[in-house]
């Protein structure tokens, strides 16, 4: 069982996620051109900017309020389903603020599942998110450190996202494209993978700095 996560730690993870999306948003939009309208990268960029603001200087002190604000402002990105789902996820995490990171992510996932019936295999962000959180849970339960656990989660998200390449979309706008969606990674799953890679990177940067201090 890892300790409960602090606001500073989570802010570091958010900074990592934002950096990861910022570096790859053009690639996300390109992926979205295959089965969508090519704006996914721009939407995700706006969403992570909102997350950064909520956790940035001048934001609320406590993690719960930060997450609530973050969820609300990501909902307000007006970027269609992607930003709404991400907003629900972060807003949902607020319910478990004060728990360890796994519990928070699980609460976010539970909130998400109230809004979408999409399951892993449907070629959506769930294909990366669900295995990432499962891997995190498994790592934490196995007694791995927070840094190791986040690394496992990022790896699982990456594998899950990559596996969407061979799936047929069954949710969202892309479902109307049917088999034409095969051969391309789902942009939503790719985003989640990048976010978890960013969480991993952000957390280890933070620990690196602390180690050097």
């Amino acid at each position: 069982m890892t300790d409960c996560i602090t606001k500073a730690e989570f802010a570091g993870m958010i900074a990592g996620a934002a950096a990861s999306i910022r570096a790859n948003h053009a690639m996300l939009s390109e992926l979205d051109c295959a089965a969508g309208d090519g704006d996914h990268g721009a939407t995700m960029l706006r969403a992570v900017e909102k997350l950064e603001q909520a956790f940035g200087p001048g934001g609320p002190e406590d993690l719960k309020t930060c997450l609530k604000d973050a969820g609300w402002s990501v909902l307000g990105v007006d970027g269609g389903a992607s930003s709404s789902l991400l907003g629900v996820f972060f807003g949902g995490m607020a319910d478990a603020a004060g728990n360890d990171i796994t519990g928070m992510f699980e609460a976010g996932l539970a909130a998400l599942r109230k809004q979408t019936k999409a399951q892993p295999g449907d070629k959506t962000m769930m294909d990366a998110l669900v295995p990432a959180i499962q891997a995190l849970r498994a790592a934490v339960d196995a007694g791995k450190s927070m840094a190791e656990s986040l690394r496992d989660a990022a790896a699982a998200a990456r594998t899950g996202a990559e596996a969407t390449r061979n799936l047929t979309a069954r949710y969202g706008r892309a479902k109307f494209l049917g088999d034409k969606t095969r051969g391309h990674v789902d942009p939503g799953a790719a985003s989640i993978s990048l976010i978890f890679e960013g969480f991993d990177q952000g957390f280890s940067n933070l620990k690196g700095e602390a180690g050097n201090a």
Partner: protein
Amino acid sequence: MKMKKFINKPENIVAELLDGFALSHPGQIRLVGNNLVARAVPKAKGKVGVVTLGGSGHEPGLSGFVGDGMLDVSVPGEIFAAPGAPRCLEAIRLANYGAGVLFIVLNHAGDVLSANLTMEMAKREGLNIKMTLTHEDISGGTNPEDRRGLVGFLPVYKIAGAAAEEGQPLDACFEIAERMGRNMRTLAVAVQTATHPSTGQPIFELGDDEMEIGMGQHGEAGTGRMKLKSADETAEIMLDMLLKDLEVKAGEELLVIVNGAGATTLMELFILFRRVDQILKGKAIKLARAKVGEFITTQEQAGFQLMIARMDRELIRLWDAPSNAPYFVVR
């Protein structure tokens, strides 16, 4: 092919188009709050408010139908993307004149998600609100959840808007919107793609000599890709599918809408409508009302949507009621 559009910065498209829309219709609409489109003069207290949401880039849909006799507030999203729940909630609060709010939602994943979140929040605030979903695109199959909301929003806005204007209570406005929804069917066809104005990317690909029946509002694939056909043949194929799906019988009265997707000319739309009318006459189906033009577009996409709706006396009366919405003026 390089995109050729008169825009400035891609990130300013929505704000600038809304500005221009409001400035050109000062007596009818205005922008309030976070870029919500509202009537210039709010409705009287004690009447039901009517609100909708939807992505931008489909002008004059959906905000062109805000006005006396139609919508109270519209929540425009980014290009082809639904607005989020926070602004929808703001719109619902604004349109609450004490008799509740009817929320009209077109069936698209992002819109429905935002609408469901909005409904949860509005109910938590104790707001009296009902949501009606339009899903009349028959290319989605037989499951209503898979049928998208296309130009059928127009009669639903008009009829529910007129009922609300008359002072009918929320339950009655909801019922009539649902009745309109159950009695309408749409099918779209595309012959040429549009470019996404923010990214400059084509939203789908279609061969030079092809057309696709069942194409969605954003280039989502349909059911039938085929060689390009003449206006008459295309109208015949599509109308036949619609009449079968709605199970229209001789003697019934229909509202017919031919909606241009953006690059298909009014000339073509009239030629198509001519054939639709001939076929209806041949089947002794009565044309109650007709509307030909651009009500919801997708940039320079070429193609059109054909909608039929079974009408009754009350629906026709409400369809004919006055409206000063910028793109649906009825005197």
